[in-house]
């Protein structure tokens, strides 16, 4: 898995998205990896709407069994959601539950005209009818549930994808 070059995937994702976005397209990153990625995309695509960030802790469907996530971050949607073209950005797409939670949260800010999803890697293992419109890489085989794949950002801002055995 260490053969996944996060920087190259990021460049691919930018080129996939470039023809589809306008200056008014709004990006919303999902904490934490998704926010880093969204910051990069926002800059590279030259978008004018301020960047949004969502922490889905308050919308997770496993609150009843796992409780509240420690240290939730602030959700910030600094643009008018009503009628907007929104792209939700996450580093890795897995079960789809995080995306579901982010969609629910986004709709509490207004009714967007359309919502799309952009991810760096689709690791398979979907449990909900959710797919990414923009995706730089889909793993040929789904990862086992015991493994977690996540984006890391070095001090100089360089991206890397790390596979962790739980």
């Amino acid at each position, binding site marked *: 898995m260490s053969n996944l070059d996060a920087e190259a995937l990021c460049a691919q994702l930018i080129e996939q998205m470039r023809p589809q976005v306008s200056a008014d397209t709004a990006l919303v990153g999902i904490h934490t990896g998704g926010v880093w990625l969204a910051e990069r995309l926002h800059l590279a695509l030259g978008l004018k709407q301020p960047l949004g960030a969502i922490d889905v802790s*308050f*919308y997770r469907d496993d*609150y009843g069994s*796992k*409780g*509240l996530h420690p240290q939730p*971050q*602030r959700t910030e949607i600094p643009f008018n959601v009503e009628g907007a073209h929104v792209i939700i950005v996450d580093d890795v797409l897995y079960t789809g539950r995080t995306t579901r939670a982010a969609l629910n949260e986004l709709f*509490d800010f207004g009714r967007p005209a359309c919502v799309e999803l952009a991810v760096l890697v689709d690791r398979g293992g979907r449990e909900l009818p959710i797919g990414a419109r923009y995706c730089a890489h889909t793993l040929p085989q789904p990862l086992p549930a015991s493994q977690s794949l996540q984006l890391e950002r070095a001090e100089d801002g360089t991206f890397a994808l790390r596979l962790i055995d739980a």
Partner: protein
Amino acid sequence: MRDPQLNKHGELQHLLTLDGLPREILNAILDTAAPFTEVAEREVKKLPLLRGKSIFNLFFENSTRTRTTFEIAAKRLSADVVNLNVSTSSTAKGESLLDTVDNLCAMQADMFVVRHAASGAPVLIAQHLQNTGRDHIHVINAGDGRHAHPTQGLLDMYTIRHYKREFTNLTVAIVGDVLHSRVARSQIGALRTLGVPEIRVIGPKTLLPTALEQLGVRVFHDMREGLKDVDVVMMLRLQNERMNGALLPTPQEFYKVWGLTAEKLALARPDAIVMHPGPMNRGVEIDSAVADGAQAVILPQVTFGIAVRMAVMSMLAGQ
């Protein structure tokens, strides 16, 4: 015996007092409260966390603000809230406290928010629930007698952190009727745990408990001396309803000596903030010019109180 408010994993099971609560838990509550403040600015001021939970506001003593903020907090978390003004219901017909609790448990309560004139009533309820194997039901103390008012203490800490960022370089003064104040007790405990180096208590001898110094505070009987160079002024309400006998001359007399006026506040640091738990007695413990002035953060305290109560409720109900 373990702290009755912690479960066997050391997590918060009930919120009964801030005394003895570790700094990590205090900080975790304050950190969790921060993202909840943003919910009030949304189109839809609601989160789905406590959907399907039943919360009973059990108020054996009157309180408009505390009950309302608990109710709003629970509703913004999508819980079902039932307000029981018990002073006018079954207890008047002779039902005991624990019988009332058992009846509400039979209605599938998930959480009790308890205000009681007797110190220790919420602890009694928590122990009763534990002894009867109902660990999934949580208790929040919303003020018991002269003992504690932990969510007020927490929202005060949240307010201080919001304006001052750090606790470890502050001088904080608590002014007024400390003797009758459960708020002051919760404040002193939390300020110490969070590492405030200098806590001052300012008030007339008749309204300060004895042996206050043992709590690690400096006691002043001269308001001007006590307010010198403080960063935070926490006013207390003069609790006429809790007083027996003549501890004070008249409210006018009290105001003259102990009321916070602009002239006295000028002795504190220029960027000092003024707090008050409400309800305020204007012209008794605080002058209107100060209460409505630029240094007052009394209304933000109320707003932060909702976020803090949302944080506590969702941390408890998720255990």
